[in-house]
């Protein structure tokens, strides 16, 4: 897949401080996560992608074009949802989004049409004639998303899109991001310090630490590579362990029926169930242990692999 964003020795200084320090890398995922602790340079990188800051050295390319040289052309293809409040309080929601779409270059009629559609799309259809200043925090976040997508960008930059949202609104926001990602017409870059948000949506992650790239990883590959770790708790083992070994699995027993298994590529979970049935072993608990984003993030932050932790979300109880 061609690179969406290319960083080439990108260095950014604000006053005497170096905020981004010689960033190199290519990001080609459909949904790219930008992770890092507060102050690591995530928002600054997004601002640099938008051309708000001029790099001290190096360059950034989006869709193969230099951001500084082709800024105007690129901005027409980008939708931006800022982290902070950003709206015109005394405009109605639909007028605000229409206004922004027109500035992006849509003719008035098309802008009006798409503003309405964008509001329905983000789920604010009923509130589109209310003034933006009267919206709740969650509604303002959705209105910001509406203005970012209304002109139909090819790249969507979302800076902390779930900030300040309650669980329900957060789930809705992440659903929308996934829907947008799955249309395959647009690439999404999400900046967040919430691992869960990134893990839910992204297929590639750039981890920043103090202005440096700590890691770039393809989450899809990581998921595939680590899907085959199993933690089992069984009763009445009855030779189940030996049978698993005959399948070619690496297997370790920790007593009390607790087993850890590394499944080879060709072995499927179904075969484990079949063996358990054949040996009348009861599987009481099963964990998919995969290298979670949290593990990857902690490794990147500390430079050392963290101790394995069970993943709640992948638990399977039988």
């Amino acid at each position, binding site marked *: 897949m061609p690179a969406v964003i290319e960083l080439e020795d990108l260095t950014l200084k604000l006053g005497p401080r170096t905020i981004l320090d010689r960033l190199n890398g290519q990001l080609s995922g459909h949904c790219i996560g930008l992770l890092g602790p507060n102050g690591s340079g995530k928002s600054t990188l997004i601002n640099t992608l*938008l051309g708000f800051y001029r790099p001290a050295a190096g360059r950034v390319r989006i869709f193969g074009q230099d951001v500084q040289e082709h800024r105007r052309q690129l901005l027409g293809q980008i939708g931006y949802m800022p982290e902070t409040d950003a709206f015109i*309080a005394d405009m109605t929601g639909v007028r605000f989004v229409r206004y922004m779409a027109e*500035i992006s270059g*849509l003719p008035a009629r098309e802008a009006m049409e*798409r503003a309405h559609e964008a509001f*329905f799309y983000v789920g604010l259809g009923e509130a589109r004639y209310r003034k933006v200043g009267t919206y709740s925090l969650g509604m303002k976040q959705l209105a910001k998303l509406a203005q970012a997508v209304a002109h139909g960008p090819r790249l969507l930059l979302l800076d902390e899109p779930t900030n300040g949202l309650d669980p329900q609104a957060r789930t809705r926001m992440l659903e929308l991001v996934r*829907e947008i990602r799955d249309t395959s017409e647009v690439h999404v870059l999400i900046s967040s310090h919430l691992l869960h948000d990134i893990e839910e949506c992204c297929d590639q992650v750039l981890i920043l630490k103090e202005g440096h790239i700590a890691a770039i990883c393809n989450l899809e590959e990581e998921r595939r590579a680590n899907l085959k770790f199993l933690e089992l708790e069984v009763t009445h083992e009855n030779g189940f362990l030996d049978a698993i070994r005959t399948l070619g699995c690496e297997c370790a027993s920790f007593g009390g029926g607790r087993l850890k298994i590394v499944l080879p590529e060709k072995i499927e979970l179904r075969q484990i169930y079949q063996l358990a049935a054949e040996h009348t072993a009861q599987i009481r608990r099963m964990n998919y242990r995969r290298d979670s984003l949290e593990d990857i993030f902690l490794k990147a932050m500390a430079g050392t692999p963290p101790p394995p932790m069970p993943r709640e979300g992948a638990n399977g109880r039988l």
Partner: protein
Amino acid sequence: MAVYKRTYKAYAGQLTPSWSRFTVLARYGFSTLFSSRIFTAYTVLCFTPFLVGLGFIYFVHSSTAQLAFGQHLSSIPLINGRWFFGFLVSEAWMGLILTAWAAPGMISKDFANNAVQLYLSRPLSRVEYLVGKVTVLAVLLSFVTWIPMLVLFFLQAELEGHGWLGENWWMAGSIVLAGLMWIALISLLSMALAVWVKWRIAASALMLAFFFVLPGFGEAFSAILRTPWGSLLNFNAVILMIWAQLFRIPLSQRHFTRFGELPSWSPWLSVFAVCAISLWLLHRRLKAREVERG
């Protein structure tokens, strides 16, 4: 992205020309301003001097009207540079109130909730943003200052005849120059103040204080230090001096302040300095992102 489908779809239609994006800001600016009935009523009121001027020119050239009002031509003031100067003064101060009302609202609303970053994350430069906003003021102020004056000027030329236009052609240039100078000054100043304080009411108050409070300081400065240079802070007088020069009002009739003691270029320098400082402020503060240095 049809409503019934509610799925995301990229836009593949025609785009407006890149150069025309600033006109969107101007269009929405007008629409927002004239959605206020009070503002619309005040704008209409700004045309009162024009209507009065129109009536006066007709009166001067209509013996029937003069007879009806029992006036004789010799007792009616001449329509000359002095007359147009007085007309411009009345129009300009109405325009000042209009600007103090309109400009801060247009800008400070964008700053109050960080909307500037949304403008500048689109194919729109800072200059275009500013041009879009200034266009609203420039068009409004043009229609209440130099455009009606030019209409009156050509009406007077037409009715007067006998080579009046040939003798007074310079006045057309003076009208346009005086109007544009005034528009540039108050537009840039109001924008800069709005960007600086980011609060509509405070920006409007500062704008009026600039013309009604600062002169007091300037004249006090002059009186205490016994120098005429403090008059350069009296922008009422500065503007009147420039217009007096443009409309060729004799020195003996210029009683605005102690400008007689200052070189004739000094009021121009004062206006130029305010415009330059305003542009500098706009350059410094009109940004998508505030950068904290240090």
